[in-house]
């Protein structure tokens, strides 16, 4: 059950973190 929990959270977490990272990269231009 714990393995399944980790896999599921990784499946949704990785794309979300990628999106957040890309957004922050773009947002940096605001303060340059």
């Amino acid at each position: 059950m714990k393995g399944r929990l980790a896999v599921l959270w990784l499946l949704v977490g990785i794309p979300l973190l990628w999106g957040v990272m890309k957004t922050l990269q773009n947002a940096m231009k605001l303060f340059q």
Partner: protein
Amino acid sequence: MTASFLDRENTVAPPEFNRFLVPPAALAVHLCIGQAYAFSTFNLPLTKLIGISASAPGDWDLKQVGWIFSIAIVFLGSSAAVFGRWVERVGPRRSMFASALCFGGGFLVSAVGIHLHQLWIIYLGYGVLGGCGLGIGYISPVSTLIKWFPDRPGMATGMAIMGFGGGALIAAPLSVLLMAHFKTATSNGVLETFVTMGVIYFMFMMIGVYAVRVPAPDWKPAGWTAPARPKQLVTSANVAVDMAWRTPQFWLLWVVLCMNVTAGIGVLGQASPMIQEIFTGRVTPAAAAGFVGLISLFNMIGRFFWASTSDYIGRRNTYMIFFLLGILLYSTVPTLGHLGSIPLFVAAFCIILSMYGGGFATIPAYLRDMFGTYQVGAIHGRLLTAWSVAGVLGPVLVNYIRQFQIDSGVAKAQAYSITMYIMCGLLLIGFLCNFAMRAVNEKYFYRGSTQS
């Protein structure tokens, strides 16, 4: 896949099931349908389908293309209202599956529209079919999460609805990447991107379909007992959906949501030109795009933060903060513009947009407090018609008032001041409705069995 796999009876969790498996299932759906917020990345490419690098005669214009998103939002609200009771009856798995079919299918039908260069097919595909996928998908996991987390309903629904905000953060760069990948001398890559996204989103939403479970009827979190004396404005009774919309509380909450969303959505849609016009010459289009991304990030964070906070301070108090702090911030924005302080201006809008997202994420738990868990998903669906109204009202207010100001000779940098004060007025109406909230009268309570 057999039909029975989708039935509610086959989604009842075994006793050892870990309830923290349900939020990622809900996120798998919301992260996909949240793509809707990033649909504007397709607007310009859709106006260059014939000309490829620039619009050519026969290409659609921005106004025509803009209707795709508007139709989708209208169908989001209407399908959530119409199918809410069906979602409650068939359970989260079948409704998430229906949402995946509609949303993924909407992209594929739209791809046909692009191929044939028929805009009405895209209106029908992404607008109507995709919009139904948005509405059904949005409400599918809500009542299930509330039942799994009776001790933290705000946090649970906040987690799922955070995904709707996060979906845009993924979809915007993903769309740009895919269009660049598929671009050729004869195609700007939109058609191929639509097909790819339709397939990816369908498959990703199926993760949620497979993972979602409903709790057994008598299930409770280990060691948790319902409080003997519920807090004020938290009911232990249930109100059926057909009765709920006859209560004054439903309409007060409708106005509360509508005012909160109207104030936020108008700004979100005009954020890029607004910051460029207020700080003329100091903010480039690329920096303005960064500003839009940043406030979208706070829109997402606010969904989890405020909904979780509402579990501790109460829903009514949370909305009091939204409205009072919102009025304070909106009334300060024109001054920040005059002062020329970009960091303070950005900070104000980050907080404003966090409360916009927080409003969406806290409303399911507010509904659960007022009407119980019995048909909270269906009641939530009907309340989302407020979103459809706000989706039209917000941008219209911001755009038309700005244009009226400019036409009357006001400088572009000052054209948003009146709009901000009107937003304060809207938030004041929301504050008064929230202030007037009282517990639902017992005459509306549902007396039958809530197990079916």
